[in-house]
């Protein structure tokens, strides 16, 4: 039996778990139907009497919540408590234009740090560790989420944030970081940089890596583990639900245990919305069971995975999800940042000189992701002076960074060089291998 942060909860019997889930689902429904206009109206529209939800199985009668619903209620429309009870606000990129906003009450933050602490302990972290957090801090939930979880365990937390890889490596060596928290691609980039600098895995002190916020496979895991000398585990979360802390692997590295006492997970057929039996692959749908500030009912994560309940040797009874294997929408994850192709289009629309013809290429540059956008520009501009072109490029780059949160590489190409599509345009070419 492994170390656990909340042993009683994490090893709960299925019978007890089901009772907790039912109680919490019902009270969440009672609160949202009272306090959130969106749900009040939605239930009315769909003719739903929430007192008819008498078992967990009945959840299938409830409507889904989508990212678009969150956008429509921007910024605070989904909150179930008055703003004065909100003590933290994060946000994530929206599909187009406005981002989605999430709020936390004091109790939500308490819950959050405990859930992250569970996942970190499951990944091997203890109070004796020095936790090196190389996620960016800010509106994204990654940095702060892992930070408070690690602090709650009692580990020594270094909030390094992202970027400046050589300095990261110096800190790892000098401060003796024992746990690395970042995206898998950044972990590989660190390994690569170390190699270039002639630093071996024996020169650093890392034991564990808790990696997340982008898809990765066993091949990458093996490479990270051998090059950095760590045990690497995956963890999963999304800011709309809470951030990191939704699920995470234990040291047996066979699926991510979902914190089921706080989130009810279903797998649906993304086309029909029908609930699929346990074990089948489909879209993950999550319902928050304890969130106060922004409870979400049947939120469509758009992540494709499979749920299974095995007898995990770690002793945890929570159901597991496989590493997400894809998306049901066109969202791209670039160095851990969520990007929608529609955002690119929105930016181009702001510029008269841009034509509607563009292509997005996602490549690997070393171990990091690179987003290259090829854009056709008008003939006049293309043969115009370089200065004007460069000024435009600069402006576009700046806008892209503001909207996407990452810096793509924009390339102007001659008119009529980009493929024209009949029917549905396929403007994204993802050349990465997971």
């Amino acid at each position, binding site marked *: 039996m492994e170390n656990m942060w909340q042993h009683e909860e994490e090893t709960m019997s299925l019978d007890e778990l089901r009772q907790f889930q039912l109680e919490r689902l*019902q009270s969440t429904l009672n609160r949202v139907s009272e306090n959130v206009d969106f749900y009040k109206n939605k239930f009315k529209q769909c003719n739903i009497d929430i007192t008819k939800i*008498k078992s967990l199985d009945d959840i299938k009668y409830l409507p889904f919540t989508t990212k678009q619903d969150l956008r429509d209620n921007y910024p605070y429309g989904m909150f179930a408590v008055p703003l004065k009870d909100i003590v933290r606000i994060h946000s994530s990129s929206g599909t187009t234009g406005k981002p989605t906003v999430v709020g936390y009450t*004091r109790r939500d933050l308490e819950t959050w740090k405990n859930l992250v602490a569970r996942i970190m302990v499951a990944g091997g972290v203890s109070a004796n560790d020095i936790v090196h957090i190389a996620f960016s801090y800010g509106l994204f939930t990654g940095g702060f989420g892992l930070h408070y979880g690690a602090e709650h365990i009692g580990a020594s937390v270094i909030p390094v944030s992202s970027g400046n890889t050589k300095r990261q490596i110096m800190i790892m060596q000098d401060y003796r970081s024992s746990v690395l928290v970042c995206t898998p691609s950044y972990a590989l980039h660190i390994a690569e940089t170390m190699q270039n600098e002639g630093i071996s895995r024996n020169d650093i002190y890392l034991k564990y890596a808790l990696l997340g916020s982008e898809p990765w496979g066993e091949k990458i895991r093996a490479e990270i583990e051998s090059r950095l000398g760590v045990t690497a585990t995956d963890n999963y979360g999304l800011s709309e639900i809470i951030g990191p802390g939704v699920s995470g692997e234990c040291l047996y590295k066979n699926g991510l245990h979902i914190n089921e006492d706080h989130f009810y997970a279903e797998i649906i057929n993304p086309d029909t919305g029908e609930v699929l039996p346990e074990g089948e692959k489909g879209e993950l749908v999550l319902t928050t069971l304890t969130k106060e500030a922004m409870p979400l009912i049947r939120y469509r994560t758009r992540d494709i995975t499979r749920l299974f309940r095995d007898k995990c040797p770690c002793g945890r009874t929570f159901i597991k999800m496989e590493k997400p294997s894809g998306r049901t929408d066109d969202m791209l994850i670039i160095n851990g940042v969520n990007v929608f192709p529609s955002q690119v289009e929105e930016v181009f629309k702001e510029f008269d000189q841009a034509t509607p013809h563009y292509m997005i290429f996602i490549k690997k540059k070393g171990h990091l992701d690179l987003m290259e956008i090829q854009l056709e520009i008008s003939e006049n501009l293309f043969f115009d002076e370089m200065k004007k072109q460069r000024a435009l490029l600069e402006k576009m780059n700046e806008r892209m960074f503001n909207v996407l949160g990452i810096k793509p590489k924009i390339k102007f190409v001659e008119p009529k060089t980009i493929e024209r599509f009949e029917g549905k345009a396929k403007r994204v070419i993802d050349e990465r291998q997971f």
Partner: protein
Amino acid sequence: MKMLKVKSLFVNYGAVEALKNISLHIKEKEFVALIGSNGAGKTSLLNAIMGIVKPKDGEVIFNDKNITGFPPERKVKEKIALVLEGRRVFANMTVLENIEVGAFTSDNKNFIKRLKFIYDIFPVLKERSWQPAGMLSGGEQQMLAIARALISEPKLLLMDEPSMGLAPLVIKDVYEKLLILKETGLTIFLVEQNAAAALKYADRGYVLENGKIVLQGKSKELLEDNEIKRAYLGKEYKEKWER
């Protein structure tokens, strides 16, 4: 799961829905409080669990046995006891006679042993065992009401508003006795308007509003919850802004 499980319980009084889709549980040796204001449905819930009113829908499961709709005397046989609101001791009967009343369903062979157990916890009842119950103070009457319920050797003790009409210091006495009883292995579920007192001593809590449960959690979490502070703990706050 050991102990009490309530699943999607409904209670109607004529056309009035007193309880709507109530689910809750109390684990063995846990001390759980349900808080709610007047008319929220607290007493209805206890009555439904105890079998005094018949639920319209839903289940009451005790140690994996479905006991929904069992009458009160069968509930006592199942080792559940209820301490009613307002104590209701028989004022003209002695303290001991009051306790004996509680033993009417159980066999007598354990009575002496049980009485000793009760007197150990409530020495004041032993001292006053020959006095009429009407002579006792409010707090002592509450303890007598608890003693009367305990004589049937319940595993689960249900209580309706133990703090009602009692002075703060006396409330503290009563709750401290409950903690001692919890230590002996008793499972306790009580309903209270006095959220501050109940949540101070209970392990977990539920919040009932208009016949529905709107919040639950560990007592410590609930005591720090802004909604509860506003609604039940009378904490003032200045509104800085409102959405």
